[in-house]
């Protein structure tokens, strides 16, 4: 297909650092050959950032690896040219063997790469210092002292506090942000011409992400290297890209300058990507309609009242009383009300205690103190006081949607068994009736009744989350706690799922507690929002207000760190910074 040539190639472009032409990479799977990279071409220019954007399975990471010829088994680079333009002339990487000394001389020296998982991408048993130094050993002939000096300098450059000391620390002693900085330092060790960043911020909190993005840009300005930035987040793209290449299913859909792409995308897929990102910038139309209705009916009493909820995780001790883990106040004196058919968003970064809050309400964690009053069924139910039996009944009213659609569905049960489980356990109706109910639910969540006999492994992530929702709805609940329900999904799927939830909220007037680290989804989905920081609710109020003009400093910082899918309104650079010295040390990359 001719799309490969969408970028007009100018071989004598003076700024061109790396040219990729018609690259093809295939994975020979047992059943079929998967074209992970199918005829992709692009050019990286000095001091410019090329964002490769696409959803999971679009093959963007494989593209990056193909350049360095480090495609994992059973991947094979089957064609295309990769040419590195150096002062001393062009080098054809595609002619080098995967393990040849030539390519190795280029890896880490001319072209460096940073990866998504800052934890697992660093060896747990070697000091950060050594792992950085290794590149120097490989590509420079500095003596040990010089290398050490360089390492310290690099660490200082990426703003690692007290580099002399921390250089000898192990990755597990670093926080997520610090690790990623260390990775960057490692990549910069030999002043590469090209920096390939593969989803470097995906695993990080927004504030941390903002800082890392900052850093990368600074460094780019400083060293004038070309950056190839791989991401799935249109917001990030808008923030940092000079040029954008969109990939879908291994193919190069379209590319152009960031402004063009956002202003007038040509391809439907691109439109969809940008569209679904932009939609989340505004409250959902359905929501607005509902809120209008609700405005009419007033004077209801809340379906759920939380008062002074505290969860103190006990310090872990060994038999001999040695302290293993410090006790933490994951949830600290949290109070709020939840109205019928209202949605309360809970936002916060990892470690803010939002997940714990949700689980405390469900009594999956025992609250240390505080009250949880549930008014779902006429009488008031003091959840904290319920016994096992009482809880089981409660679980019919209050349901949960989990974050990970893979982990939360037992792979060994059929869809019918999964969705039917709550019905069966509550003996609501005969098997036959339940069967019909399951079929009905499947249709409602956009699946087919004949999917009942299937097992989860037959479904994609999005579909699984739908199954999860069906399971949550099965016993006609009144309140649903959705813990990062859409975080694991691709952007295009998120809005679909959220809309689906909204439909149900409308038809069953459900109440939601919607836990998320992602401000945009909250804005899109929630009536009110509570912002959590270190176990406390620092701000709570109408979603729109909180999102548009926050009062609390932290909220400001948080919001201002969120990248917007609009290249014309870049703002991360001049964002608010919430000064909490050890904030960085506290957030541990992945969200809890």
């Amino acid at each position, binding site marked *: 297909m001719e799309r490969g040539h969408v970028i007009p190639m100018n071989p004598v472009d003076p700024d061109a650092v790396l040219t990729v032409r018609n690259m093809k990479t295939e994975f020979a799977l047992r059943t079929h050959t998967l074209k992970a990279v199918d005829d992709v071409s692009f050019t990286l220019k000095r001091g410019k950032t090329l964002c490769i954007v696409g959803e999971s399975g679009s093959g963007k990471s494989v593209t990056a*690896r193909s350049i*360095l010829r*480090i495609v*994992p088994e059973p991947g094979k680079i089957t064609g295309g040219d990769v040419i590195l333009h150096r002062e001393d002339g062009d080098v054809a990487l595609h002619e080098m063997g995967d*393990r040849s*000394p030539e*390519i*190795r*001389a*280029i*890896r*880490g*020296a001319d072209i*460096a*790469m940073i*990866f*998504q*998982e800052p934890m*697992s*991408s*660093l*060896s*747990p*048993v*070697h000091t950060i210092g050594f*792992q950085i130094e*290794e*590149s120097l050993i*490989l*590509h420079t002939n500095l003596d040990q002292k010089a290398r050490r000096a360089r390492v310290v300098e690099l660490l200082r450059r990426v703003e690692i506090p007290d580099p002399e000391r921390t250089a000898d620390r*192990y990755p*597990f*002693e670093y926080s997520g942000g610090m690790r990623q900085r260390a*990775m960057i330092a*490692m990549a910069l060790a030999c002043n590469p011409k090209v920096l390939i960043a593969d989803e470097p911020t995906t695993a990080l909190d927004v504030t941390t992400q903002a800082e890392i993005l900052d850093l990368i840009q600074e460094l780019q300005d400083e060293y004038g290297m070309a950056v190839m930035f791989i991401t799935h987040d249109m917001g990030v793209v808008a923030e940092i890209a000079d040029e954008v290449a969109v990939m879908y299913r291994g193919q190069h859909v379209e590319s152009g300058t960031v402004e063009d792409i956002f202003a007038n995308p040509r391809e439907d897929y691109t439109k969809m990507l940008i569209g679904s990102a932009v939609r989340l910038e505004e409250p959902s139309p359905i929501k607005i309609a509902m809120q209008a209705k609700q405005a009419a009916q007033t004077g209801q009493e809340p379906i759920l009242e939380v008062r002074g909820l505290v969860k103190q995780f006990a310090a872990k001790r*060994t*038999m*001999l009383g*040695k302290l*293993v883990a410090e006790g933490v106040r994951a949830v600290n004196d949290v109070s709020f009300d939840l109205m019928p058919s209202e949605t309360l968003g809970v936002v916060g970064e990892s470690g803010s205690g939002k997940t714990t809050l949700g689980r405390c309400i469900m009594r999956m964690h025992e609250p240390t103190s505080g009250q949880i009053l549930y008014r779902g069924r006429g009488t008031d139910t003091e959840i904290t006081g319920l016994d096992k039996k009482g809880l089981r009944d409660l679980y019919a009213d209050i349901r949960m949607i989990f974050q990970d659609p893979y982990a939360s569905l037992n792979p060994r049960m059929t869809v019918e068994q999964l969705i039917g489980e709550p019905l069966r356990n509550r003996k609501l109706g005969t098997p036959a009736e339940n069967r019909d109910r399951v079929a009905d639910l499947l249709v409602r969540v956009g699946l087919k009744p004949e999917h009942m006999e299937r097992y989860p492994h037959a479904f994609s992530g999005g579909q699984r989350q739908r199954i999860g929702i069906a399971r949550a709805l099965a016993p006609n609940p009144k309140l649903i706690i959705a813990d990062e329900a859409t975080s694991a999904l691709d952007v295009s799927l998120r809005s679909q799922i959220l809309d689906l939830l909204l439909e149900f909220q409308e038809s069953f007037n459900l109440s939601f507690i919607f836990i998320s680290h992602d401000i945009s989804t909250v804005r899109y989905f929630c009536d009110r929002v509570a912002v959590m920081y270190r176990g406390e609710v620092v701000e709570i109020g109408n979603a729109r207000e909180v999102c548009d003009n926050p009062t609390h400093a932290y909220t400001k910082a948080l919001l201002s760190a969120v990248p917007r899918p609009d290249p014309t309104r870049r703002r991360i650079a001049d964002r608010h910074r919430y000064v909490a010295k050890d904030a960085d040390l506290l957030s541990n990359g992945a969200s809890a």
Partner: protein
Amino acid sequence: MLRYIARRILLMIPTLILISFVTFIVVQLPPGDYLNAYVAQLTAEGGETVDRQQIEMLRERYGLNDPFIIQYWKWISNIIFEGDFGRSFEWNAPVSDLLWGRIGLTFVVSLASLLFVYCVAFPIGVYSAIRKYSLGDYVFTFFGFLGLAVPNFLLALVLMVISLQVFGVTPGGLFSPEYAGAPWSFAKLMDFLAHLWIPMIIIGTASTAALIRVMRANLLDELNKPYVETARAKGQSEAVLIMRYPVRIALNPFVSRLGWELPALVSGAAITSIVLNLPTAGPILLTALQSQDMFLAGSFILILSVLTVIGTLVSDILLAWLDPRIRYS
């Protein structure tokens, strides 16, 4: 690190108490006591008759009529407070005179086998992980299991017969006759090493397979961890990066297993020693158990167990030294 060690040592204490107790139960289980066995052995071959009242007096003297717990307390308290392991009836000698030399050799042999096992298992494990499902992988695996499948004692006997028929020498024992009585000397050491390898291999074969599998499995897990890719992206060469990163990490479980291998090897040594006639704990322990020479048997089992517990400790410490994550938490 020191605190970690201290803690582990503290944790050993209850285990040790339990061990000593169970040990004593075990040696007490068989019906009758040493004197029955003694009399039986004397009257064998139509030989001796013994003055029954003398036997009764002996039984009194050795407190064989005391209740179990008292006997246990006498035994253990003597060991703890006076380092006195009691007396071997059959050998007419203090247990400690018989104990240490043989225990020593037992552990020399066991550790030698341990060394052998690890030296064999490590490279093979790495190889068959990197060359997964290759011919070599299968071949090694097969021979590994073969070693596991052939009973030690059979292997020992066959090896001996072969070495007799082929080389005309009997490989039994750990020393040549001329050195058996002699004090330790360089020549004796050489002679010892010359004898060591047969038991070493025989005992080792049993455990090798398991360890190969451990190494292989762990390495397979590590091989496609992101940090390997990081190193690759740095331009490190395959050989170096594999040894430096995944292998280095896969080493931990490999090492931590060391503690569990030791008991197995000591057991293997016990059996093999009987066939190969090695002056280790095995043979004397067996006779002690059969002749109900309880203090001797008990002390042997106790010490062997204690040493294996210590072995476990050592392997844990080794692990902590290898893996900073354990060291620092």
